[in-house]
């Protein structure tokens, strides 16, 4: 192995170094350009959309004359003005750009208005006179299930005989859980700017995780071909899945206005509209039935998941598949039946959000494990360990993938020791026994998360690399930058591969005309896929240079080595990288290359839900300790310890940021972030004034996060790193279970409390009061 292949070696900014984000200096000075900051073309129009006020209704009359007559208005568009396809749905054609006859949720787009200023457009959009003929609306997944109202067929996975196992089990528990959704709350709202080009072509600047999809949807809407549309995105101000399928709507509308008027058009959503109009994490109603033995080993289990998908399919098929794939989390489930319903409701169509259904799957099994432990009066951590996937045995998932890279036992053992779980459990018991208004709770929860798109064909990526004659490099790939540091990591890979300082590499905007047919930057796969593709491109160029140098200097190709801005020519001579590049140029060697990567080993049959959907698993574990107030349900997270597996990290600072940020975001999902609809189907938590994501003071007072060291990925990923975007979010289940533990202490752990998510102060107080009522009604306590 040469030094050049060793991560963490030269050059400056190579692989494994804790570099700051490549745009960090621009972020802190205000110099980073987001879509709304791009200088506007002359004559730009501003666009606003008119949205439905009813959850389900026929449009009896749509009078847009007052909109047309409003000051500054230049154009008003409805479904009739779409030359191509009136759809932006990513999978099915069930998401109209403009609802024509019927609306299916409050906030559904019906028309657009273009005006000289943002203010004029938004004011005008409010002037439409719409008569609605109400239709029956389903506003709740439970009701949808009753009416068998689905956006997609239900699906199931069966292994073994869960019915028989449940019958035979020594102990059996059943329950029903409600799990809330979550708004992505990226700080930069949805936005697109379309600029007409010659010959009817369209250039679209879109804040999107999926430029390729925006390109296709815009082309379809305009009645054009993919070749006629270019989509560009340098960066997003956060995305979290909310900019995977959703941006197509706004890009299509901006492009339609641009095509119709011949002028550039920009559509930027106000925050309230953004939260009302766009999809969120799916909320669920979950039923379980579990049978287990005296030590809590699960013998049979059945899950029934009912997800609120909203009014259309969007990405709900894949989201709910991932829920099914993660209802095992870290545990071996022998006899198992998983049923998943994709409920159609007259609410906004739910979509991707960090974890993509996985968190909801895990929530259920972790809840069940906790219930088993409380029933048996043992520490939940013991039941968790009892059910962990084995090594060499009990290691096949319900979908028939063998868990080959299991490091759960090691991670949990190390974390348990480092966090002093047992000692703190004792201290907490002593504190709680003192009988104040405050109670403490603690929980350790693990994460095992499958890495790869479950749709196998999406696991591919391309890159484009140019080397200029002065030795500087232009890097492009199909991934998008939403803050996760993908561009920095991929540049580090190229710096490491070419052995040049990272300053020589220009990181450039995602652009459908440079790298075609790229998948969404999603499923935590950005670095795995694009890092490998860029590496391949760099290797192609390096191989050409090596071959050229061998011929030019008359030495063996093996004697050419790239080291820290230099190229070693045989044992005694070294020339600058730039010089070799220059020589190669004059010798007419191509200095531009594409790179391509497809994830190996994976295969999966959607019909039978079996195969190897995941290339590998990412692991982690967290211990959370909380304090609750038994009079009000208020709480505080006192301490959190995390040990997370990033493989051999490409950039430990960026990976640490993903772990910490993902954890806090997950904590928000399970605690204060509550989506609340009224009986008219209107979302009333549609701004930061009513929807509360964590702030600085919510971060645990004592927050100890570590990346697992010397943990090279057992699969041949780029420099043996692991994906880190989504898995840490689910570490926050520890906070939820610590809260449940604290509630249980109110009745001295005699009974298991029922706690729905999100665990707002109200939910916690309800759980306490319900527990006390049950305890009072049942004086003879079960003493296990």
């Amino acid at each position, binding site marked *: 192995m040469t030094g050049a292949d060793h991560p963490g070696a030269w050059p400056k900014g190579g692989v494994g170094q804790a570099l700051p984000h490549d745009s960090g200096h621009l972020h802190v000075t205000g110099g980073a350009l987001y879509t709304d900051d791009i200088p506007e073309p002359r004559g730009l129009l501003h666009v606003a959309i008119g949205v439905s006020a009813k959850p389900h209704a026929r449009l009896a009359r749509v009078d847009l004359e007052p909109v047309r007559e409003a000051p500054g208005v230049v154009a008003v568009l409805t479904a009739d003005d779409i030359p191509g396809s009136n759809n932006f749905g990513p999978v099915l054609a069930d998401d109209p750009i403009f609802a024509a006859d019927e609306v299916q949720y409050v906030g559904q787009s019906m028309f657009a208005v273009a005006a000289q200023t943002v203010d004029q457009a938004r004011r005008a959009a409010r002037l439409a006179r719409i008569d609605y003929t109400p239709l029956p609306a389903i506003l709740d997944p439970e009701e949808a299930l009753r009416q068998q109202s689905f956006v997609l067929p239900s699906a199931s996975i069966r292994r073994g005989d869960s019915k028989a196992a449940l019958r035979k089990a020594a102990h059996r528990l059943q329950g029903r859980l409600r799990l809330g959704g979550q708004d992505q709350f990226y700080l930069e709202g949805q936005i697109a700017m379309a600029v007409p080009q010659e010959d009817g072509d369209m250039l679209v600047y879109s804040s999107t995780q999926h430029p390729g999809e925006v390109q296709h949807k815009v082309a379809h809407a305009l009645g054009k071909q993919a070749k006629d549309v270019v989509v560009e995105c340098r960066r997003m101000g*956060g995305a979290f899945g909310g900019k995977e399928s959703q941006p197509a709507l706004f890009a299509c509308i901006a492009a339609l206005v641009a095509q119709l008027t011949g002028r550039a058009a920009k559509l930027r959503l106000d925050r309230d509209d953004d939260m009302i109009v766009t999809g969120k994490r799916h909320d669920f109603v979950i039923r379980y039935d579990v049978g287990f033995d005296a030590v809590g080993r699960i013998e049979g289990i059945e899950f029934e998941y009912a997800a609120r998908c909203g009014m259309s399919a969007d990405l709900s098929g894949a989201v709910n598949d991932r829920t099914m794939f993660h209802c095992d989390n870290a545990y071996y489930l022998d006899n198992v039946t998983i049923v998943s319903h994709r409920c159609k409701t007259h609410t906004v169509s739910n979509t991707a959000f960090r974890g993509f259904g996985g968190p909801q799957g895990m929530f259920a099994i972790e809840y069940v494990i906790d219930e088993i432990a409380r029933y048996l009066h043992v520490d939940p951590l013991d039941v968790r360990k009892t059910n962990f996937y084995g090594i060499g045995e009990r290691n096949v998932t319900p979908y028939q993938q063998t868990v080959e890279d299991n490091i759960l036992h090691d991670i949990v053992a190390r974390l348990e020791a480092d966090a002093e779980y047992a000692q703190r459990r004792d201290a907490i018991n002593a504190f709680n026994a003192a009988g104040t208004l405050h109670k403490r709770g603690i929980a350790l929860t693990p994460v095992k998360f499958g890495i790869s798109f479950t749709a196998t064909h999406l696991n591919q990526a391309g890159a484009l690399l140019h080397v200029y004659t002065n030795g500087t490099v232009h890097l492009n790939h199909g991934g998008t930058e939403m803050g996760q540091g993908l561009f920095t990591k991929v540049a580090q890979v190229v710096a490491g591969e070419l052995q040049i300082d990272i300053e020589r590499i220009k990181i450039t905007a995602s652009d459908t005309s440079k790298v075609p047919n790229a998948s969404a930057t999603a499923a935590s796969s950005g670095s795995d896929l694009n890092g490998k593709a860029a590496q391949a491109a760099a290797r192609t160029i390096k191989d050409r240079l090596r071959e050229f140098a061998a011929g030019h200097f008359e030495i063996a190709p093996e004697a050419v080595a790239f080291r820290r801005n230099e190229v070693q020519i045989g044992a005694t001579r070294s020339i600058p990288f730039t010089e070799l590049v220059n020589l190669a140029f004059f010798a007419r060697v191509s200095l531009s290359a594409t790179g391509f990567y497809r994830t190996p080993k994976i295969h999966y049959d959607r019909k039978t839900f079996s195969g190897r959907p995941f290339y590998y698993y990412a692991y982690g574990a967290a211990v959370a300790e909380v304090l609750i107030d038994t009079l009000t349900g*208020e709480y505080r997270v006192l301490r959190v310890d995390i040990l997370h597996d990033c493989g051999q990290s490409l950039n430990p600072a960026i990976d640490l940021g993903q772990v910490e940020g993902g954890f806090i975001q997950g904590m928000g999902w399970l605690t204060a972030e509550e989506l609340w609809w009224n009986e008219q189907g209107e979302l009333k938590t549609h701004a930061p004034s009513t929807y509360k994501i964590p702030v*600085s003071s919510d971060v645990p007072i004592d927050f100890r996060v570590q990346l697992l060291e010397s943990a090279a990925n057992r699969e041949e990923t780029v420099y043996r790193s692991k994906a880190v975007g989504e898995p840490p979010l689910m570490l926050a289940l520890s906070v939820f279970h610590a809260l449940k533990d604290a509630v249980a202490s109110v009745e001295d752990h005699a009974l298991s409390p029922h706690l729905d998510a999100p665990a707002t102060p109200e939910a916690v107080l309800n759980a306490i009061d319900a527990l006390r009522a049950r305890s009072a009604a049942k004086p003879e306590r079960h003493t296990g």
Partner: protein
Amino acid sequence: MSGPDRQSDPAAHRVQFLLDGKQVSLDDVDPTRTVLQYLREDLRRTGTKEGCAEGDCGACTVVLAEPHGAELRLRAINSCIQFLPTLHGKQLITVESLAGADGTLHPVQRAMLDCHGSQCGFCTPGIVMSLFALFKAQTGANRRDIDVALAGNLCRCTGYRPIVEAAGAMYQYAADNEQPDRGWMHRAGPAGDAEERALCRQLQALDGKASLALRSGERRYFAPRDIDTLAQLVSEHPQACILAGGTDVGLWVTKQYRELPTLIYVGEVAELRTVDERDDWLDIGAGVTLSDALVPIVAHYPAYEALFLRFASPPIRNAGTLGGNIANGSPIGDTMPALITLGTRLMLRKGGATRELALEDFYLAYQKTALQPGEFVSRIRIPLPSPGRAVRSYKISKRFDQDISAVCGAFSVELDGERVRDIRIAYGGLAATPKRAIACEQALLSRDWNEASVQGAMAALDRDYSPITDMRASDAYRRKVSKNLLYRFFLETSGATDGKSVYDWR
């Protein structure tokens, strides 16, 4: 006195302020144009971001510098709801203002970069500005100071840990003496040095003495300097909107698209900006910002410290006024229950006449107050503490910081031995207005302050309020928790608990 409409000084029709050390003079300013719109749309100065346009996310945070006596005072504010004319006489500092002329990063920026404090970077300019305000307010900061300073800034990517670290580290960068001096903004703390004092004088000169009076199309804006002129203007324009901090009025424009043809800004009225301590009163001008008003209140009533720290966020407290909070008539303003239980009285001014009204009588119905056309709140009189009186106020919300309360309860009790001599209880969030709990009080008055009577009073709360269910809480939770808050007050005043809240655990 020359009326504001008869101003002859041309400067009085021009908004003047400093930006990057340069004087900006604007004619024909639309009074409801926000500072953020001005920066992004007029100047194409796009570092400052819009995240919510309601002052709740902090992406638009900028800092205003203005003279405070002879000293320069810096305050972070939300530019998305601050109207442009209110910049008059101030220095506007944005994220682009901080780096040195040679591009050297400000210590705040350096620390944020080195600590990996940005991911997507969209919230970063606002966070940098909030930390800059903290940097200039004090010469070091602990976790609590940092959390308070950042209470109005949302970050969805980082989980805040690196930002908190940067806030601690920024002082070290400033203390690096190897660096050449890059001016007052790069020096930590309120330096009060010659450079800052010179800037003060420059701002005072810029401000001039004349009242600002603007006309832009149909829209008018007045910024009187004295209370008599204000009273005259409000009488002449009874339909005018009175603008103080704009933390609510700003949203009428950015969210409700309301037309506000006439604005009368009270932020320049000298008499409304004073805090006086009389014999029995703390006498606070209605134009005093919440930041300034809460300090003397907490000095007299330390029990309210947590409540007031949780009141919105620093940028909102820096702009919003106590008078505005009261006059606006929200059912859930967090100061009202406490002020009602203290027996606060309002001075209401109309033309040349002033009348006095108890705060509890000010609220008539949902968002309806006793203010008559042409009348405004001029002063707030808060009784000083009396010995033997115990007071508390507790706020319940989903999130600790910068959340609107589901329930806010305030309690004041005076005991005569065991017997309740005087009791005042008020809640916000349980009715259409902040309201006293009369039945509950009756159940306690002249009874012994013990478990039994308190339990009876808790039950009596059901006669006082019929709370609703909304996105903040269910009616059932509001009922339950309002009773439990009274119980908590009883436990604390009877010594059964130490009064430590879950948020006090460090």
